[in-house]
């Protein structure tokens, strides 16, 4: 089938970007969205033009490296009644009609500067984890794995939150460019486990503080983040974060020393 593309081209972080039109023939429905871009790039390269730069790695929906805004939706999963949970690499061209026009833009947010074309710098998400998204246990210092039993329900909830792939779609979708869903997923994951308790109070303060300092927007409970999340991290996680954050105000061990 034939597809018309409008793709964001931006040579580097300093220059202005713009949408450029391409038309691509020979697209098959079995191709993934990124394979369609590969095909475009092969043709551009043959013509001696610069191929479109985009990020991808595992192409099986788990590494979180890929991600572009497709027709106004991060990762492009849009069902009729409900959003379809997908990463860009797991979206297939059969979701598009022959002759349709697809607009492709990078994640846009203050904390995600564009590096080139569809590639943005998401290292701010690493900074948020760095601020406290871990359990401090040195290698070799762990007790036996069966030393603590963990309630299955809580363990499952921890797991649901831990499935976050850090792709940044939540930030791209949020009208405020907020990373609250990302941060709250880690907070919830660790808050559900007994191992996560000693640092729980300090963790939430540090991570939220870091997130604000990095230039992410604030949460206004719009819910776009959870709607596009490829892993279905629920909006409740943000409330969990808020509860922990409020509780930390009243706890002595919540003070940074």
């Amino acid at each position, binding site marked *: 089938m034939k597809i018309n593309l409008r793709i964001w081209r931006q*040579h*580097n972080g300093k220059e202005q970007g713009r949408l450029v039109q391409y038309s691509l023939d020979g697209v*098959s*429905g*079995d*191709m*993934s969205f*990124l394979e369609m871009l*590969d095909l475009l790039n*092969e043709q551009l*390269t*043959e013509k*001696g*033009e*610069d*191929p479109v*730069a985009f*990020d991808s*790695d*595992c*192409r*099986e929906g*788990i*590494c979180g*490296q890929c991600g572009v805004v497709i027709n106004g939706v991060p990762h492009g999963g849009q069902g009729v009644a409900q959003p379809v949970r997908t990463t860009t690499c*797991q979206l*297939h061209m*059969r979701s598009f009609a022959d002759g349709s026009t697809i607009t492709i833009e990078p994640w846009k947010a203050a904390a995600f500067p564009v*590096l*080139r074309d569809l590639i943005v*710098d*998401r*290292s701010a998400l*690493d900074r948020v984890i760095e601020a*406290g*998204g*871990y*359990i*401090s246990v*040195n*290698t070799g210092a*762990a*007790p*036996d*794995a*069966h030393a603590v*039993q963990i309630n*299955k329900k809580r*363990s*499952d909830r*921890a*797991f649901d939150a*831990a*499935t976050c*792939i*850090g792709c940044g779609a939540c930030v791209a979708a949020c009208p405020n460019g907020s990373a609250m869903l990302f941060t709250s997923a880690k907070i919830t*994951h*660790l808050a559900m*486990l007994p*191992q996560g308790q000693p640092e729980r109070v300090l963790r939430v303060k540090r991570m939220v503080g870091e997130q604000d300092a990095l230039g992410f927007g604030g949460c206004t409970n719009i819910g776009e983040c959870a709607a596009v999340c490829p892993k279905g991290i629920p909006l409740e996680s943000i409330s969990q974060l808020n509860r922990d954050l409020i509780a930390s105000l009243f706890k002595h061990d919540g003070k940074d020393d």
Partner: protein
Amino acid sequence: MSTSAKETNAELAAQYWQAGEDIHDAKANVALPIDKIWPDRQFTSRLVNPANRRKMTVIIVGTGLAGGAAAATLGEAGYRVENFCYQDSPRRAHSIAAQGGINAAKNYKYDGDSVYRLFYDTVKGGDYRARETNVYRLAAVSANIIDQCVAQGVPFAREYGGLLDNRSFGGVQVQRTFYARGQTGQQLLIGAYQALERQVNAGTVHMHTRHEMVELIVADGRARGIVTRDMVTGKIEEWFADVVVLATGGYGNVFFLSTNAMGCNATATWRAHRKGAFFGNPCFTQIHPTCIPVHGENQSKLTLMSESLRNDGRIWVPKKAEDCEKDPRQIPEQDRDYYLERIYPSFGNLVPRDIASRQAKYRCDEGLGVGPKVKEVDSDGTEHMRSRGVYLDFSEAIQRLGKDAVEKKYGNLFDMYQRITDENPYEVPMRIYPAVHYTMGGLWVDYDLQSTIPGLFVCGEANFSDHGANRLGASALMQGLADGYFVLPNTITDYLADSPKFPKVDTKHPAAILARQDVESRVNKLLSIGGERTVDSIHKELGHIMWEYCGMERNEAGLVKAIGLIRNLRKEFWTNVKVTGVNEELNQTLERAGRLADFLELGELMCIDALHRRESCGGHFRAESQTEEGEALRHDDTYQYVAAWEWTGEGHKPVLHKEPLIYKSIQVKQRSYK
């Protein structure tokens, strides 16, 4: 092996490789009982005073399970760690894609498991081509891994009582596999990533993302640094350290299509190989039977589905070629060939990975494959359109267990299949085909994980590893974390103890200047060729050659031919490739071209290694070496060794060094699945 075969090998050897001296691991004290060797090594390994550690720099390339775990652990110990990855975040390393689980000899199920049994299964599964001291240590530290990960907050599957759940995996008889739904790799990697970020926060680890290692600096006989290219700005930079650790994963992408991530590459290990690190068993690759087949020429990667599907699914192809295009539901039972059940009545669809893979290939070669036709070039140069797929049918399981039970067991896999192929596996049989999945080969290392270059350590899939000729399911995660958390941090100190005596190395050192010049001239060369062919088109061609001649079944004529084809293709690459853009920008074509240049050299070595090993073992099947029933036949008398290859320069024959494998703690057996 017959004398004539030996003579043929001698003839080939004269043409493709040279014989070198045997090598040995000198670090493990094999005079001790096997369970005493690791404690002994931990004790004899010299230590570094905590006050001295912060003065020592460790370069670690890669942030997967092995690299991330090593960086976190060495950071905690107080060393200054410089950690590099090509992705935009350390959390993206391809360890994340592992689905099944991680083995550990915890014996929580009380079903007779032990360190020795895990050791035994791993050596046997590797078809007796792994070093037993290393494998025993791997089994011994496996239990610590689980403790460590649980303490980090990895949410392993639990039972209602709150204790950890285990399952049986990959045909072993004990339940020793810990898992986290179908995302075990992701959860373990996130655990290591968090430990790593903690050290970044503590200032002990400096993280360099979107930096690709493009050269190793070997100064005064020691690995002392690396050269990187900043993938955003193109800046080429030297980094110096007391020791260099490579944890850069496997080289499955030499086949172009594999289950590896797009960016997985062999550049770091290959550059090290060119600087003197021996490459161990490069031809040992693992091909996984249950992947989603290729759909067309523009496919960029293959997706694996868990092997567990073979527990209930029945594999078949039509008996008649004219039925292949039909709707499989219209093909009557008597016209179906359940070939695994037919050939291996006792194991049926549960035969090991390599057998299942090879049989699928044979059926498709015979023209009985199903699904979309893909263009292929046969060994005689003719082009064919051929279907590459066999049916994996759940209709019987659905009848027997009910749709709900099947959905409960395999629902997520069925969903994945449907999303990719747009076919409903509850209605129509799935189509599967084997795909390259893991490479057992890698840089040769001793018991300390040190390569033949002093000061260059290699861990995880990047080393020639503990898996011998074939890796068991749920063992890759175990090895990556064992190396990173528990082995390397203990052995590296013995080397670092000497580092205060090392001479200073900086950008003015001749070795550094030379390394930088090499990188720059390579980049300039790639950008100046200005040919006609895209990088991917050449990579795909290399992939076809490797898959056809060095894939599931190899033979002498094919390998000789492949070597010729690869050499021509390499020439084509260096004269006719088209790399757009400049170095001083984010240039993905340039990145890929650099990686492909190395794959084109590695591919040849893989074929030479496959050519020299005239036996079948594990993932390496030589058509010349099979039993009367068509089974893999090892030649322990001739080939019970690790082939460690030494680079001798472009256009020169590599030197083969053998490390004889001596099994003192395990009895060597020939496997049979009839």
